[in-house]
């Protein structure tokens, strides 16, 4: 097995789990789903720089073989942004639950409330 295979399949598993969970009817599961998806996305974004073992992008003269630093910078940015978004969505999910007493997002509770 190659590292590429491991990463690609891990991305796939995380995406599959993320998609499945974010399609659940309650906010917490959805948040879990988003978390899995963001792991997958970060891994993917990282992987597009190709995989490099033991060559961290720390500049040294004469070194020509190094991991692509740019995707790493992008993933860092993405991790931070994802964290902000996760935090907000978690709090919002809680806040909405506190306000309405329901953590469902399938619209069924709303329909009941409306009728």
């Amino acid at each position: 097995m190659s590292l590429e295979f491991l990463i690609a399949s891990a991305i796939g598993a995380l995406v599959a789990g993320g998609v499945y969970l974010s399609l659940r009817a309650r906010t917490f599961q959805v948040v879990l789903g988003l978390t899995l998806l963001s792991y997958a996305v970060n891994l993917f974004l990282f992987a597009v720089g190709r995989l490099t073992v033991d060559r961290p992008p720390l500049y040294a003269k004469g070194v020509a073989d190094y991991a692509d630093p740019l995707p790493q910078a992008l993933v860092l940015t993405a991790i931070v942004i994802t964290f902000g978004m996760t935090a907000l969505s978690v709090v919002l999910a809680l806040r909405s639950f506190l306000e309405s007493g329901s953590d469902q997002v399938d619209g069924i509770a709303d329909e009941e409330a409306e009728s």
Partner: protein
Amino acid sequence: MIEVALHIALGAVALALLLNGWRLLKGPAIGDRIVALDTMVINAIAVIVLIGMIGGNDTYFEAALLLAMVGFVGTIAYCKFILRGDIVE
């Protein structure tokens, strides 16, 4: 010799991780799972140290250090959650 020892060591630690994973999945008590997770963090530190040695690169030690410093926060938080529900009182 070192090379071989390092790879054997890494294999052993990896096996340890696998054992942790088994306990984590199996439980049965919530405490078992938390122990397993906590151990996994410690073993992960070992993995990082070994990777650093294999690569002859001390760049990764901060990751290990950080894990040693904040890794237990998760464990504590899980425990506090079970004990008190509210982790910040």
